[in-house]
C-alpha cells in the first residue's frame, strides 16, 4: 500500500465527472508522474488528492489514514506540500520572504530548512533579497518548489513544474526533483512534457478521461509501443 493513495476517485466541478474512478498512489522516495492528453483530469486528480475538489466516491489515504475530511491547509500540516501550476509564488515579496511564508505554520526555527533549500537551489540564495516577481520563469519555479519544501513535507505535489520553461531549465528542474526524492520525500507530479518526465519516474500513470489507461514504471511505459504511439508521439 502506497504512502499516499487516492483509490477509485470519482468527482468533478459540478455537471459531468472529470475523474471516473482513477487510482493514483506514490511512495516515499519515489517519483510518480501523471501524464495524459489534455482534459484527461491530470490536474484534477492531483487537486482531489490535495482536498481542493470534493469526491463523490472513492477515498484518499495517507499513511493508511483516511484524510478525506481534511481541508487543504490541514493536509499541509499533515505533511503534504503542493505547488500550483500558476500563481505559485508571492510576486511582490522577496525570495527569502516567499520561503518564510512557506514556513508560516511552523513555530520552530526553520533556518536549517531554508539553508537546505538554498543548497538545493543556490541561485535563490544569491537572489534572496530580490522580489520573486522579478525572477526568470525557471527561477520562479525554484522559488515555488522551495516555498513548498519549507514545511518539510513528506509528500510534494507539483502541478506542471516545467510549464513555460526552456528545455535546459526543465532538465535542471528535473535533476533537482530527483535530488528531493532521494531525501525520502514522495513526489507526485503532473507533466505535459511526458517523455522527459517518464524518464525520471519510478511510477507512471497514463490517464484518459479520468480513468487509468496504463500504469507501470516510467521506463516500461516509455518502452510500451502502444503508449508511445498514442501519447508520446511515436
Amino acid at each position, binding site marked *: 500500500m502506497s504512502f499516499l493513495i487516492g483509490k477509485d476517485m470519482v468527482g468533478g466541478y459540478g455537471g459531468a465527472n472529470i475523474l471516473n474512478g482513477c487510482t493514483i498512489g506514490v511512495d516515499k522516495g519515489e517519483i510518480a508522474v501523471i501524464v495524459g492528453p489534455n482534459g484527461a483530469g491530470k490536474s484534477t486528480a492531483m487537486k482531489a488528492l490535495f482536498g481542493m475538489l470534493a469526491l463523490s466516491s472513492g477515498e484518499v489515504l495517507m499513511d493508511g489514514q483516511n484524510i478525506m475530511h481534511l481541508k487543504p*491547509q490541514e493536509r499541509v500540516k499533515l505533511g503534504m506540500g503542493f505547488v500550483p501550476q500558476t*500563481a505559485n509564488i*508571492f510576486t511582490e515579496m522577496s525570495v527569502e520572504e516567499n520561503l518564510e*511564508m*512557506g514556513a508560516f505554520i511552523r513555530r520552530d526555527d526553520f533556518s536549517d530548512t531554508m539553508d537546505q533549500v538554498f543548497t538545493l537551489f543556490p541561485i535563490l540564495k544569491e537572489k534572496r533579497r530580490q522580489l520573486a516577481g522579478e525572477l526568470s520563469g525557471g527561477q520562479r519555479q525554484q522559488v515555488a518548489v522551495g*516555498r513548498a519544501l519549507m514545511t518539510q513535507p513528506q509528500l510534494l505535489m507539483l502541478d506542471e513544474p516545467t510549464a513555460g520553461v526552456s528545455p535546459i531549465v526543465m532538465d535542471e528542474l528535473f535533476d533537482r526533483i530527483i535530488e528531493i526524492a532521494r531525501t525520502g520525500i514522495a513526489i507526485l507530479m503532473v507533466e505535459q512534457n511526458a517523455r522527459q518526465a517518464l524518464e525520471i519516474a519510478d511510477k507512471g500513470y497514463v490517464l484518459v478521461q479520468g480513468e487509468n489507461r496504463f500504469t507501470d514504471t516510467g521506463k516500461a511505459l516509455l518502452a510500451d509501443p502502444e503508449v508511445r504511439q498514442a501519447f508520446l508521439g511515436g
Partner: protein
Amino acid sequence: MMTDLINALVLIANFILVPGLTYGSQLGLGALGITMIYSVLRFSNFAHGEMMSFGAMVTILMTWWMQSQGLTFGPLPTALFALPVGIIVTIGLTLTADRLVFRYYREIKAPPVTLLIVSMGLMFFLGGLIRFIIGPNDQKFFDGERFILKARDFKTMTGLSEGLAIKSTQGITVVLAVLMVSFLFWFLTYTRTGKSMRAYSNNEDLALLSGINPERVVMVTWIITAVLITLAGTLYGLDKSYKPFTYLSLLLPIFASAIVGGIGSPVGAILGGFVIAFSELFITFAYKRVLGYLLPEHLEPSGLMQLLTTDYKIALSFVILVLVLIIKPTGIAGGKTL
C-alpha cells in the same frame, strides 16, 4: 533684491509648504487606510470618511471629559492624550462593523462592488449616528499652546517683512504622521503578521495554502486601519475644526490620494496625499504678493493672481483623479487598477 526673493519664498513656505505638509500628512494617513482595506479586503471602503469622523468624535468626547476633570497638559493639546481612548473605541467600531456587516459578504464571496455599496450603507448609518451623538455643528476641542513659531517672532528674528508661522497642530500632525507611517512600514516589512498580510494581499490562494489564517489578517487590517483613521480624523479636526460634514467631503481627496499614488501601495498612499494637498494649495493660492516681490514695481499685478478660488478645491481632486485614471490607472507607485 535678495530680500525680495527671500520674502517671496517665506510667503510660499507660510501659505503653501507648511499647510501642504500638514494637509498632505492628513490625506496620506487617510489614504493609507483606504489602501490597506483595498489590498486585504479587496473593496473601496466608502465609510472611511465617517469612520474618521467617528474616531475624532470619540477623541473629542474624551478630551472634553478630561478638560472637565482639569486634566490638561500645559502646552500640548489634551486631545493628544485622549487619542488612545479614541483609537480603542474605533477599533471596537471597525471590528464590530466587520463582524456584523462585512464578514457575511466576504463569506458569500460577494463581488467588490457589492461590498462597496454595503460600505456606503455603513457610511450613512455612521453619519447619522455621529450627528445623533455630537450634532452637526462645529466643535472646538483644541487647547494648549497655539503656535510653535509665531509670524511676528519670525519677523523680528529675521527682519523680513513676511512672517512664517507654524501652528502646533501642524507640527503635531507631521510628527505623528511620520511616527505612524514608520511604524506601519516596519510592521509590514519585518513582522511575521505584517508579512502574512502582504502575502495575503499579493496572492490569496497561495497564502491560504501556506496556512495563513485569513480572518486573522482581516482583523489585524481593521485594527491598523482604525488607528490610521482615528489619527487622521483627530489631526484634521485639531488642525482645522471638527465638523461632521467635512469628513464626508474629505472622502474624495482621500480616495484621489490613494488612487493617484497607486491603490494597494502604502508608499503610493503617502505620495498621493502630498500630490493632492500641494496641487490644491498651488492652484488655489493667490500669487499677487509673491509676484509683487519678484516683478519690477510697474509690472505688479492688480488682480489676485489666483488660478482657482478655494471653492473649487474639491473639484480639483476630482480632475486629478480622472486624469490619473485615464493616463496612468496604476498610479505613481504602480498599484492595482481599479
